[in-house]
């Protein structure tokens, strides 16, 4: 546990008048002033808007109003969520300066709950990466050791929480982009069930995999944030038509009698220090009354390959709209095709271009069946494997990341080594399931290790129960 005040405590203090929202904001802005230059968690700090908002909340509270469960809680948003009138860049030059005319659904929900937005956080361009080194605006550094990466793609959101710049933050997770940076920065990170949280206003990377979720210091804060942003949204056709689950109330119920799955055929690649913490987590849960059961997920070893066909295929289509015609940056040319080519060549970074090319190829006539089509079949096999595993287990435990946070440049020369960072997180996205990373001690160089809890569709309750027990045992 960190020494920062939790969102739940802040909201209680602000709502009761024990502390003003203004003073909470100042406290966080001061930390930003002190360390942001070094950490670079943000693309934009909205200090003026935050102060104004806090003052407004304090005035309403003084009038006796209930301003919501996140009263005065400073929140950072990954810079791929649309905020009305506030630049939303996806850390890409192609969208630099673009101001959305509308809010993402999650932004409206947080605002209605009384939150205070402090800024837009850095990410790997269009959420493509595992270290936040692919940002067009420079990398984010891990607040725990600034010579190391914070993970990615939501590295800015993870770092903002870890550094105390915001009490909580939102990220997006397409293949591990919340859980992996959470693990590397020593915070809690949740990827909810696909469809539990509206994607309306989240700039799409891979539509069938993207999901918004929270970062926080505590499991309870993560549960509260998930409750608040979840729920059906008529603006998102893939949103699950059910009310948001009740999660805070299940915390503390323990894991007595729960069956915790251990993957017998876990793909290789995790470091020994990481595996040691995973073993410790099993022991802690067993001590708390859970049963450990072995499960098999044979198709897991194909998940990474399938993901790197499906996600780029969708991305190649989702990112085609950045053509310089209607918004964002344009490189002028004498004819249309040259304008398209020059605009996209100048606007996108290497990793984005690499994935657009991969995806375009995978969908091309004559290659679709061999690549994209086959990847969809693997995706189905993975879902089948999970379904079989969850007959015997309530949740499954794996490492979140195969390693602790690594130094800058360690994996930038070969994209494939970088892709392997997500080997344990990607299967969840392919299956559409929920998963979360909980800090569970440290490994090499005293850097944090995260343990990942996987659950079946809408299995958030079981997942959070286990998370709460791990948190108290860590």
């Amino acid at each position, binding site marked *: 546990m960190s020494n920062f005040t939790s969102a739940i405590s802040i909201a209680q203090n602000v709502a009761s008048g024990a502390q003003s929202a203004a003073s909470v904001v100042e406290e966080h802005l001061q930390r930003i002033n002190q360390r942001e230059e070094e950490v670079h968690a943000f693309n934009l700090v909205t200090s003026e808007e935050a102060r104004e908002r806090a003052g407004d909340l304090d005035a309403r509270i003084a009038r006796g109003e209930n301003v919501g469960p996140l009263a005065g809680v400073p929140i950072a948003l990954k810079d791929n969520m649309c905020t009305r009138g506030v630049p939303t860049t996806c850390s890409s030059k192609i*969208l630099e300066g673009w101001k*959305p005319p509308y809010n993402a659904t999650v932004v409206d929900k947080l605002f209605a709950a009384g939150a205070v937005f402090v800024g837009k956080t850095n990410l790997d361009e269009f959420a493509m990466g595992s270290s936040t080194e692919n940002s067009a605006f420079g990398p984010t550094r891990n607040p725990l050791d600034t010579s190391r990466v914070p993970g990615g793609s939501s590295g800015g959101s993870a770092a903002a929480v870890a550094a105390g710049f915001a009490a909580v933050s939102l990220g997006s997770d397409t293949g591990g982009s919340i859980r992996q940076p959470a693990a590397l920065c020593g915070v809690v990170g949740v990827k909810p069930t696909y469809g539990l949280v509206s994607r309306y206003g989240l700039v799409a990377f891979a539509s069938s995999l993207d999901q918004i979720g929270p970062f926080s210091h505590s499991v309870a804060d993560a549960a509260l944030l998930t409750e608040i942003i979840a729920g059906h949204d008529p603006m*998102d*056709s*893939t949103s699950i038509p059910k009310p948001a689950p009740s999660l805070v109330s299940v915390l503390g119920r323990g894991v007595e009698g729960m069956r915790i799955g251990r993957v017998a055929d876990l793909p290789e690649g995790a470091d020994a220090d990481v595996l040691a913490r995973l073993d410790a987590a099993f022991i802690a849960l067993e001590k708390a009354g859970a049963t450990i059961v072995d499960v098999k997920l044979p198709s897991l070893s194909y998940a990474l390959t399938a993901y790197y066909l499906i996600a780029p295929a969708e991305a190649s289509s989702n990112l*085609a709209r950045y053509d310089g*015609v209607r918004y964002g940056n344009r490189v002028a040319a004498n004819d*249309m095709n040259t304008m398209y080519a020059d605009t996209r060549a100048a606007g996108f970074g290497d990793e984005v271009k690499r994935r657009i090319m991969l995806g375009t190829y995978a969908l091309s*006539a004559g290659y679709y069946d061999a690549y994209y089509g086959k990847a969809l079949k693997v995706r189905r096999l993975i879902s089948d494997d999970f379904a079989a595993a969850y007959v015997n287990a309530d949740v499954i435990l794996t490492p979140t990341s195969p390693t602790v946070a690594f130094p800058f440049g360690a994996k930038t020369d070969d994209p494939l080594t970088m892709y392997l960072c997500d080997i344990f997180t990607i299967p969840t996205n392919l299956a559409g399931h929920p998963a979360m990373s909980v800090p569970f001690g440290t490994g090499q160089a005293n850097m944090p290790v995260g343990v990942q809890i996987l659950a079946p569709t809408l299995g958030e309750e079981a997942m959070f129960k286990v998370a709460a027990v791990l948190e108290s045992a860590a």
Partner: protein
Amino acid sequence: MIDNGLPEGWELVVGLEVHVELATKTKLFSGSPNRFGDEPNTNIDPVTLGLPGALPVLNQHAVELAMRIGLALNCTVKPSTFHRKNYFYPDLSKAYQITQYDEPLNVDGFLMLPGGVRIGVERAHMEEDTGKSTHFGGAGGRIHGSEYSLIDFNRAGVPLVEIVSHPDVRTAEQARQYVNELRAILVAVGASDAKMEEGSMRCDANVSVRKYGAELGTRCEIKNVNSVRSLGKAIEYEARRQIDVLETGGTIRQETRHWDETDGRTHTLRAKVDANDYRYFLEPDLVMLAPDAEWVERVRAALPVLPAARRTNLAVLTGAEEDSEAVAVVVERGQDTYIEEVKNSGGDPGRALVWVQQSFAEEGNAPRLPAKDLAALTVLERDGKLTATQAKTVLGDMLEAGGGDPAAIAATKGFEALDTSVIEGFVDEGIAAQPDAWAKYCAGEEKAMGALVGTIMKLSKGKADGKVVTAILQQRRGS
């Protein structure tokens, strides 16, 4: 063998792809108005503009209209999906069009042409329209070489249904009939106003020719056909072009061709080899569209009587031919129920059909003139109390006033029934006044009758019934 107007031995094979804009209030995937003719770029929103983060939500009313079309065309409604068709063009805001691909909503139907020919309908699927580009300066309205282009996104996201026929059409006339009949059905079920001139209905033709009994020939797709008349002309031109190529030893290249109304020819637009690879894949932002059986049956039960059945009913009611123009026109205007009302008010349906066809072009499907008033007029006419000419005058007054008693109007105009004996008197006077004409007429010169009738009508101040006059003249001549 059917007369297709082509040289001996050649068969024409045509399949038609018709796009119709659905008459919904809002767009296919967003809440912006679906309205033609508004100020450019006023009916837009984040979804229409393809802004980052915007997501499509399917318009349920559009689905219902699409089902009406499918069911009216005897299709089966099936669980269906949407795909993305990817290509770059400035008026395609997302750089992909959301369209149904391998699992369309409506499949395996047919349309019967008025002459009884059955044209198979392969599918009728849903998709969104693109924005509209206008290119200024440079070469002839094309983007290449133009100085600048403007885009209107009002049309982007307007719901379309594409109706694809089997290649069952064998003559240009059948193609025209198909489009006319399809339009009548679309209007009847309330799915679209189906106006080719305004672009709410657009038609492409896949044309090929072959020797009778041979394998299907290579087809060319003809685009930019903006009227039913042009469709016929374009098909006829294209068929002859292909026959000329084949008869001089050439081969047909599969390509898209552009119909040019001004020179009456088709021109190569792009060859098949240059076609885009659209990289279709399942649209991940939408879920499967699977209308339940109960919904499908509700839509089917609510379908109105279709034009073909209405033409049969009207023909039976009026005694007119089923394929007559009067029947076709009146059903197209939706005025057949009005004629039924005239009959139910005691009127003569045959005469009513004539008057409605001639004088009700501006009236729409609910004419202002009360059916009982037209009924009264047709009775006066049938009973010989008014001549056709007089009846037309009276009807003119009634239409202007929005109703009235035809007998009273006739009386104020001094229109009264003339007894045959009175007409006989005018005939006597007429023969006396035109002795030469009468002699010629008696000698068998039928043309001479015109002068006699004209004189007699003038003498009667138009009150004599021309038909009666003719009959008396014929009787007097003894023929």
